[in-house]
Each structure stands twice: as structure tokens, then as C-alpha cells.
């Protein structure tokens, strides 16, 4: 329980203007981008130094207050929705890039640094931080690490986890914990980095992140291939990889999405096409030229009705504008957008797309599917109106069916959005009771008072 004296303690510690007590202020930290009901926190605080962040965690632990750490609040699984009576801790005042090391290829950042700002800062020095979640213009790196965020470049470059070299974080009791280092190799102690990445704020509060950087690819080439059926598009993906080419991005749009984007942006997309593949290769200019040629040939062999290669940056931009517009265009059709991220092995994409089409018909719901064909991470996007109770029941049933289909194909519930509150109840289906029990024991050992983002990630 938050008492007046505790509020005063927080105000003394952080400054009165960094403690939000008013109902209206608190309501603006009651939600994130998931389609879930808001939960009003009792208090919202914004520490302006890592030391203060640690003190806040300690105070919450001492007073049995649930803590939900929040960056930009963009996650899609309810991971930043607080507990009733809990404390929301904002990291957006901890927004300094502490170091960009060009010799050793790493950056050290505070958790509140915005993903795109780091990407720009390193790019200005000819370096590259590849993870590019859709919300990167506003999302924070702390949030990316806590959710193990993905993005469009997963196939070639991996996800956030692949770039975290080390972390400093606070335990539930407020002790400082260090893991990993500034070195490429480090086997000192448990791999706590692996434990923390994707833990959704349930095992520690991150205060500093060491991120791996790589050289910026010198050249890139984008192309758009049109297909008359989904299977041909999917087999093309497999064929490209079988030819030992790993594109930086390999994106898929289904017919429903193509038509919606075209209605919205009049970019001249082929509205009759069953599927579009948007492909980009990058690297050394000579390699890029050769690979682009090969990819184009493979697309044609696999039955693409049309392949268009962008000749310059303006054309490249036009290719990608179709993908960028996908979610916006779909979102404008209906008031509520449910963006799923069930993921299947690459080879199962045609089966998964068919299953989603069948689910769309069965539950009479419009579903647009687009996403990262290269890594099997599709985004079936259900368009609905959450105020329509009857329809909402069908949406929930459709989500269940999508998860069942993905698991049936040997896939997973979530490729990049996380479990949070939204998918916690499905966890056991995928991983079995033993895994849940094991995870709960870890949680109980590391956070005995269960104050760190309780209820998230490991199933109620």
C-alpha cells in the first residue's frame, strides 16, 4: 500500500516534479499498445539517475510494492501494464548514450535511449545497430532488451538478444548485478544476460546496456516480386536460402494486405497478386550486385509474375513504402487492430497462411497477413471493433485458433512481441507444465516478494 509518508519519501528522493500522483497523470501510464484494459497505478516515478533507479527498486521491495518499469510503452503484449496499486518506474530520463567505441565495436547506453537515436548515432560513424522493431522511432533500448524485440532484419542479423554483450541491472532487493563485458568473448559466471533478455521486467531492472555494433553495409538493393499463389512465394523464400543467399530483409504481404495498402496509398501495387515478396540484400557492392541478380533469377524460376529491382534510393523507398504502410492501411479499416506474431518454421509459411485464411472465414473476421517471411514470423492482423461484444468473442476464439495452428506446425506463440499479460494463459500449451514450474522457481528465488512486474511472462 502506498502511504502518504511513502509518497513523501519518493518526493524527497526524486524531487516532487518527478513523482506523479494525480489521477489524470497516472491514467496515462495505465496502458501500452496491447488491446487490453488499462490498470491505474498508485504512483508513477521518474528517476533521473541510475543510482536513484536502484533506490526506487529497493524502496518498492522494502514496502512490497509491485514495480512495472516503462520505457515508451509501445509493447504489444501488455508487459508494461501495471498491477493495481503498483508503481510505474519511467526510464525516459535515463536517456544517455554513454559510449560508442569504434575500435572495439560496442556502445554503452542507459535504458531510456530511443532505439532510432542509437541507430542514427552509430550510423553517422559508419557503424550499424541492426535490430529495427516497428516502434523504433520511439521505443527504448531498455524495453527492447526486456522484450527481446525483433524487427525486419531478423533473418540475416538476428534480434536484440544477439547484440546484448552485457548488462548492469538491479535485483529485486536493489543490489547491483553485472553480467557480460565489453569483450567479444566472456564466459565469466552464469550467462545472466541470456536470463534477463526477454524477461519482461520480471527478474531485474536494467540500468545499463552494452550493445554490439557491426560495420555498416556499404551497399544495398531492394526488389519486389509478385506471385499468383502463396506457395510459390514461400518456395521462393526457401529457394533463395537454399542458394546460400541470406537477404537482410525478406517480407511478405498477402492479397488482403496488398489491396488495403493500394486503396490507401495508390502506389500502383498489383491488387490481383496472391502475395508480394519485398527483398533486400546488403553488403559489399560487388556481392550485392551479384546476389540481387541471382535473387531476381530465382524469383522468376519460382514463377514470379513480375520482379522489379529498385534502381536508386527513391525507387528503394517506393518498394519499402508498401511494407511500411501495411499496418497503417489495415489499421484505418476498423477501430481495433489486433496484431499477432505467432511464428512458424520458414517452410511452414504456406500452411500457416492457408490456416489463417481458413480462420478468417470460419470466424467471419477480416485478417490481413504480412510479416517477416524470411524468419517465419508472420503478423496476422485481425480487424475488429472491441466494443462489439459478440464480435470480440469471435476475435478471442480466432486468436486461440491462430496459436493452435502455429503450435501445430512446430512454431511458437510469439516471435517478437513477448508474452506479457496477453499470452500468459497460452504458455503451458507450448512449453508444458515443467517449464512453467521451473520458470516460477527462478522467479521466486530471485524475487521472493514478487514485486518485479508480477503476472507477466511466465503464466499467471
Amino acid at each position, binding site marked *: 500500500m502506498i502511504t502518504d509518508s511513502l509518497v513523501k519519501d519518493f518526493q524527497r528522493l526524486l524531487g516532487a516534479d518527478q513523482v506523479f500522483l*494525480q489521477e489524470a497523470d497516472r491514467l496515462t501510464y495505465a496502458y501500452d*499498445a496491447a488491446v487490453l484494459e488499462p490498470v491505474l497505478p498508485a504512483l508513477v516515478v521518474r528517476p533521473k539517475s541510475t543510482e536513484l533507479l536502484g533506490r526506487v527498486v529497493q524502496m518498492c521491495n522494502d514496502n512490497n510494492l509491485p514495480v512495472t518499469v516503462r520505457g515508451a510503452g509501445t509493447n504489444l503484449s501488455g508487459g508494461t501494464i501495471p498491477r493495481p496499486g503498483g508503481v510505474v518506474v519511467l526510464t525516459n530520463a535515463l536517456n544517455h548514450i554513454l559510449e560508442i567505441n569504434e575500435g572495439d565495436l560496442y556502445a554503452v547506453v542507459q535504458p531510456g535511449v530511443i532505439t532510432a537515436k542509437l541507430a542514427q548515432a552509430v550510423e553517422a560513424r559508419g557503424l550499424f545497430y541492426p535490430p529495427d522493431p516497428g516502434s523504433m522511432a520511439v521505443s527504448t533500448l531498455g524495453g527492447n532488451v526486456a522484450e527481446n524485440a525483433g524487427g525486419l532484419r531478423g533473418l540475416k542479423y538476428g534480434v536484440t538478444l544477439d547484440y546484448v554483450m552485457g548488462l548492469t541491472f538491479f535485483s529485486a532487493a536493489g543490489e547491483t548485478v553485472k553480467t557480460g563485458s565489453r569483450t567479444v568473448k566472456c564466459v565469466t559466471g552464469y550467462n545472466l544476460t541470456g536470463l534477463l533478455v526477454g524477461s519482461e521486467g520480471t527478474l531485474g531492472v536494467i540500468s545499463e546496456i552494452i550493445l554490439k555494433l557491426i560495420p555498416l553495409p556499404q551497399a544495398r538493393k531492394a526488389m519486389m516480386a509478385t506471385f499468383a499463389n502463396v506457395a510459390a512465394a514461400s518456395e521462393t523464400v526457401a529457394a533463395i536460402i537454399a542458394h546460400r543467399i541470406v537477404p537482410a530483409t525478406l517480407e511478405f504481404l498477402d492479397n488482403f494486405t496488398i489491396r488495403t495498402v493500394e486503396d490507401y496509398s495508390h502506389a500502383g501495387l498489383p491488387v490481383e497478386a496472391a502475395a508480394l515478396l519485398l527483398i533486400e540484400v546488403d553488403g559489399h557492392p560487388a556481392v550485392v550486385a551479384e546476389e540481387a541478380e541471382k535473387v531476381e533469377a530465382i524469383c522468376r524460376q519460382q514463377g514470379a509474375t513480375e520482379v522489379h529491382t529498385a534502381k536508386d534510393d527513391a525507387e528503394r523507398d517506393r518498394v519499402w513504402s508498401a511494407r511500411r504502410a501495411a499496418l497503417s492501411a489495415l489499421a484505418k479499416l476498423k477501430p481495433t487492430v489486433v496484431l499477432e506474431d505467432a511464428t512458424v518454421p520458414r517452410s511452414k509459411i504456406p500452411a500457416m497462411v492457408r490456416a489463417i485464411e481458413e480462420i478468417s472465414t470460419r470466424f467471419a473476421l477480416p485478417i490481413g497477413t504480412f510479416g517477416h517471411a524470411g524468419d517465419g514470423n508472420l503478423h496476422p492482423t485481425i480487424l475488429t471493433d472491441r466494443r462489439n461484444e459478440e464480435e470480440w468473442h469471435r476475435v478471442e476464439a480466432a486468436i486461440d485458433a491462430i496459436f493452435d495452428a502455429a503450435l501445430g506446425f512446430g512454431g511458437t506463440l510469439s516471435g517478437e512481441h513477448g508474452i506479457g499479460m496477453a499470452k500468459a494463459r497460452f504458455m503451458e500449451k507450448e512449453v508444458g507444465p515443467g517449464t512453467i514450474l521451473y520458470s516460477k522457481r527462478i522467479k521466486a528465488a530471485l524475487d521472493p516478494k514478487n514485486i518485479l512486474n508480477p503476472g507477466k511472462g511466465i503464466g499467471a
Partner: protein
Amino acid sequence: MSSIKELARLMKELEDQLVVCMRCGLCQAVCPLFAETGREADVARGKLALLDGLAQEILKNPQGVQDHLNRCLLCGSCAANCPSGVKVLDIFLKARAILAGYMGLSPWKKIIFRSFLSKPDWFNRVLAWGARFQGIFIKPVDDLLGSSCSRFMSPLLADRHFKPLAPVPWHQQVRELDTPAGAANLTVAFFVGCLIDKIFPQVGEAVLAVLEHHGVGVHLPAGQGCCGIPALSSGDTRTFRDLVRHNLKLLDDPAHPCDYLITACATCSSTIRKLWPLMMQEAGPAEQERIAALAARTLDISQFLVDKVGVTPASAAAGEEGRITVTYHDPCHLKKSLGVAVQPRILLKANPQYVLKEMAESDWCCGCGGSFNLQHYETSAAIGKRKMKNIARSHCQVVATGCPACMLHITDMLSQAKMRVMVKHAVEIYAEALTRTARPGWEGGSPHDRQLGGRE
């Protein structure tokens, strides 16, 4: 004060628009206010959640919501970049009206809007007295920028370096005008707007010079009032409607049919074009139709000159040497609200004496926001400093824009930073090119000592 249930019912009328927000949070990337404060209640997503909270009766304190809702520049950056197409400004203006109706208008706003703004004639007379006696209270600080500051400690003026009232307002220089269409075979009605009338009459002068040059007939009716945005943004729909009706009578006059209505103020343009039809829905069908028709033919001066008259860039002078460097600030109400960004730049390029150099973040809000500047000056200035720094980094001699409100705030920011950069309206720069050829020897000069002569 009526019951909170009643307020929730009123808010529910906005529900169809409120549910469109999917809480993605991408508005954080473009909100100038959020960039300064980092507070969710300052960004569109937070405010929409608050209005939703009132509609769903989660919130019990409407005052808190009103306070947050008023902390907004109404720049429209969020709406222009919203993936779901939430009509943020429509929602905010309607919500401000609902909340002002429910909570009552603050006494000082009531006096300003109902006793002055809604009575254009009286408003003009009061300000004319102000212009005569302002020298007692303020002193000039920068001759190039023409800015002044308070002589004494003043809670109202604070640290501002503001533009003083023009010694002779525009409506006294050119009371009314009716010229026939010439070469262009077009006639326009000219809506002047308060800031051009009372602070920047030289912009009005430039508009007339340009229109005359191109043979455009001008209908400038006497007795024009404010476009209504200050009242509307405070939720005072009554004053807003009075002003719309007052102006409509003058501007849509069957005795003076016009092809277009033009303004040289981004905010007036977007108010007439977008908000007049939106917020006059309680009017009868005939009146609504008139408003809609007038709104549809309302154009910003640069839009009119480029799209309708056919002004094009001058053939490029060789090199940059000897030319005046100018950078351009995109007013939110031109670029984000009306999509007008190319045309003002063409006006600048149409003057061969100038060379346009883009500043970084040219469409980042200057921080003025009209009433926002009066109520939240510190934040307004913090946002303005970012603009000032971008202007400084462009190393230009002149900053041009298309909105007198931006001109005021940018002048304040530059003057406080002791930066010797002139602030001009794009149409002034274009007019300079024409006057040079039409009236040799006239160099533009300082706008303050220029008189129109003979027009009245």
C-alpha cells in the same frame, strides 16, 4: 457544474473517433511538447486515453483532464503522422468545447473573447489606443528584428522579446478595396487576420503588391474580425460561431463574387478551411453549405500564387555570391494541416536575389501555438530554442515562413539569443522581387517606416 455522468455522456459522442487510437505511441516521435517534457500526458496518446477515461467514467476529476488537454500546441504533428489516422485535432477541439461548457470558461477568457474578440470594431479601437501608449511600457531591444521587451517587471510580458503593435494597423492603411480582375482573370477575397492587421501590416502590403502585379482582382471588405481560433482553442464555441458568421457575411458576399478566399496566415487558412466547416455543424443546412463552399475555395497566398497564378522559380542566378541566404520554417498549420510546403519555397526561389538553404527539422513546430504561448511561455520558449538553434546552424541572413504567429515567436527567440537574422513572410520576399522590377530603386527597406501611400 453538472454531473460527471453528464460529462461522460458528452464525451461518449467522441467515442467513435477515440477508439481509432490503437495506443501505438508513435506520436511520441513527433510531438514537440513531449520532446521537452517526456510526459505521456503531454502527448496525443496520453490525452486520448484521458478523454477515454472520462467517457468510461474511470476518471473522477475533469479539471485534471482539462489542464492536460490545454497543454497542447494544436500543431497537428501527431495527426499528420498517425498510423491509424486519428483525427486528433478534431477530437481535442471538440473535447475542449465540451469541457469548457461543463466547467465554465475562465473569467479572464470570458472577458477577452466575449467583450473584445467577438466585437471586431471595439477590439480594433482598444488596440489602437494600445499602439499609441505602448512606448510607456515597452522599449525596443533589436532594431533589425524590430523586437521590444518590457520596461518593468511584468507578469504578462515576462522575458518576452515581442513585436510591438504596428503604429498604424493595416485596416487603417487600407480600409477596403475592390479592384477588378486583370491579366490573371481571377478575383480573390482577402482575409487579413489579426496579426497581420495589428503587428505585421507590411505582409498585407506585400500581398496586395503581388496580387496587383499579377492582375488579380481583390475584394477586401472593411470590418473583418478574427478567424475564431483563439476562442475555439479555449472551447468558447459561442464566440467562435459569432466570428464565423460575422466574417462569412463579409467574405461570401453575393455583391462581390470571388474565385478564391486567400489569407497570408497559415493559422487563419487552416481554421477557415478545416475548422469552420467542422465546428459549425449546428448551423442550418443552407449556412453549412455556404461555409463548406467558402472553405473549399480558401487558399494560402503561396498556394494561390503557385497553383492558380502560376508563379515559378526564377532562372537560377550564377552561384550564391552576393545573394541573400534565406531558410524556411514550415508552419504546422500550412504543412501538417493543409499539406502546403512546396509552394512557399517556390515563392522564395522566385526572387533571384535570394538563395534558399534548408534548415534541419524545418517542419518541427516553433513552439508558439497561439494561446499556448500565453499560458505556458516557458515550455513554448524551450521548444522555440530548438527552432532558434536550427536557424542558427543554417547560417542564413533571413528566416522566412508563412505564418505571422510563427514570425512573432521566432522573432522572440532570435532576439533573446541576440541573433541578427531577419524574420520575413515568404510573400514579402516574393514581393521584393516584383517591386524591384516594377518600381526601380525601391529596396524593400525597413518595414516599419514604409507607408502605403495613396491606397486609402
